């Protein structure tokens, strides 16, 4: 596709379950980013990938959060043992290289019951 694609668009799960969120960046974009947007808040940086490496994981809130990227393409963000405070929209963005404009997907709205 032409843009950044995220799936699922919505996810409802019970507290304590693990979830996987997927991001397909724009083809050819080497840089990929994950953000979290809580209700009424701005975007909170989580992690940055350059190729398949993550030189900056400083925004991951706890060790329950992890992310990987393969083939310099698809990325997955995994949240283990979900908590209610994890409820948010998780946004993925990609850019051609790191200092170029970021293009965002439409996000995954995660709700923890």
């Amino acid at each position, binding site marked *: 596709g032409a843009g950044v694609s995220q799936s699922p668009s919505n996810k409802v799960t019970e507290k304590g379950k693990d979830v996987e969120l997927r991001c397909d960046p724009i083809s050819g974009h080497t840089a990929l980013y994950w953000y979290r947007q809580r209700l009424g808040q*701005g975007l909170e940086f989580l992690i940055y990938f350059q190729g398949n490496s993550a030189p900056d994981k400083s925004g991951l809130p706890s060790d329950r959060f992890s992310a990987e990227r393969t083939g310099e393409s698809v990325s997955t963000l995994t949240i283990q043992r979900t908590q209610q405070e994890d409820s948010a929209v998780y*946004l993925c963005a990609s850019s051609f290289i790191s200092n170029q404009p970021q293009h*965002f997907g439409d996000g995954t709205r995660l709700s923890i019951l």
Partner: protein
Amino acid sequence: TQLLEQSPQFLSIQEGENLTVYCNSSSVFSSLQWYRQEPGEGPVLLVTVVTGGEVKKLKRLTFQFGDARKDSSLHITAAQPGDTGLYLCAGEGGRGSNYKLTFGKGTLLTVNP
């Protein structure tokens, strides 16, 4: 930690009115970006300002970067209902972290017909 304060947080105006949104920080940014986000979608980049004192115009939208590169404003002339949305400013970090965007909490604009 770099922070961006946006004001006002909410703005409801009538069609045809003018408005200004402010984005302020105590930190210097190498560039500042403005995004517009509609419900259920990711942010879309409107403009990037790089040089202190820079003014950019995009139809009825005027963006200004402060001389010290710590603040920015967005002015909309003769607002229309189609301008309704969440406006976010984001500062780009300096050398070594040029990939990292720090977002404000956003201004939710409603333009009533």
